[in-house]
């Protein structure tokens, strides 16, 4: 972890309300495809590595930056670092990716990329996050795995 915080005063935003339960949610006979909101609910409470805030509160993840096709088994998430030189971008992307890989059925192809134009090393970070061999090797690194687990464990 860094000793100096890069972005001392990030903008903080509100959280959305919990999804309202409908009668259909309880009905096991109704096929309920994954939607944007469900993906968002999985990742919005990931902790920022630097601030005692969630990725949702920092607008690093937003529901409108998620695309999902349940039929084609695709999930795509764009995330927006709070500053364009954020050195935590790879770690944040890795946390989102790991959270989704652990939560979603394995049929899904998950891609996690920086929102275009919001980071100085956008392409390099995207390439690293897309390389499943590097991601697998990173997760075998005990220290890194601990840091990621801290990010994706909910505080509440």
């Amino acid at each position, binding site marked *: 972890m860094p000793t100096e915080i890069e972005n001392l005063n990030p903008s903080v935003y509100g959280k959305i309300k919990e999804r309202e339960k409908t009668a259909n949610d309880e009905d096991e006979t109704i096929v309920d495809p994954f939607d944007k909101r469900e993906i968002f609910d999985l990742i919005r409470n990931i902790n920022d590595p630097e601030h005692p805030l969630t990725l949702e509160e920092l607008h690093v993840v937003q529901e409108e930056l998620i695309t999902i096709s349940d039929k084609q088994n695709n999930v795509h998430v764009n995330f927006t670092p709070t500053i364009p030189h954020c050195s935590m971008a790879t770690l944040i992307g890795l946390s989102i990716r790991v959270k989704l890989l652990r939560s979603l059925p*394995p*049929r899904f*192809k998950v891609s996690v990329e920086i929102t275009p134009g919001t980071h100085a090393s956008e392409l390099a970070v995207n*390439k690293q996050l*897309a*390389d*499943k*061999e*590097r991601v*697998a*090797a990173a997760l*075998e690194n005990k220290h890194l795995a601990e840091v990621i687990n801290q990010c994706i464990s909910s505080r509440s």
Partner: protein
Amino acid sequence: MGRLILEHTLQGHKGRIWGVAWHPKGNSFASCGEDKAIRIWSLSGNTWSTKTILSDGHKRTIREVRWSPCGEYLASASFDATTAIWSKHECNATLEGHENEVKSVSWSRSGGLLATCSRDKSVWIWEVAGDDEFECAAVLNAHTQDVKRVVWHPKLEILASASYDNTIKMFAESALDSDWDCTATLSSHTSTVWSIDFDADGDRLVSCSDDATLKIWRAYHPGNDAGIATPDKTTVWKCVCTIAGQHSRAIYDVSWCKQTGLIASACGDDGIRIFKETSDSKRDEPTFEPLTTEESAHEQDVNAVEWNPVTAGQLISCSDDGTIKIWKLIE
């Protein structure tokens, strides 16, 4: 059109399977993955089963296994930064030197040289000095990024390597000072080159990439009749064919059958595809057509494919879904 018939689905490994390798005799194979174990499988009657599990050699994921040409030795490359050499189910030697994950290992045609590569950007060449002795002959730092795969030429002591830096490089020993030099850099892919394989003669190479294309490269030697310039009297490799629009995600492996000339690809879209050179294909502008596509060959990414070196048309594959499949191609 051809068809891939699924002959066997094999389970045994826990989790993702990264690599499979046929024994040179074609009657057994080895597999490896994130469970840190190597399994050796063989056929008895009509059933493939695990004959041996080698589980105490590596501390992390085993990325690739390769048999020596004589079939006596098995080499394994691991994320624990080492390469292990196995003989008769025992670990004979552990090669150390890479700074981090070893991604690939390859034996030269004679079995006298071994190559390894790593995320540390280097390619190492080892000389087999004795039964369990390996001496480092060269450390090659030509790539600027992670090196994903090393493959020796099928006839000559020429090494090809594929990298996260989007290029493929060729290495050969200089006749002047017996140093290993990079003799060619093959650039055309727009993202990571995951794997490469030579054809039977070694005059052509196929590569597969994260950019979802396959490319065919041809060697032009000094004095070639196509009139391709060869500066410094060094063989030049040119991309002569790109197979695009067939795969929908990263292609993780490719195998060029030395007997039939067919090309098989393993894709991150769960598919296995077979390509055949067309009858009117030209030497300097070859054309390939899809022979068959098995769209959901596995339930998750296909990580490796390899043609049986003896039984033509038999193909093996492995996947993130934890299974190994054996296929038969019907043309």
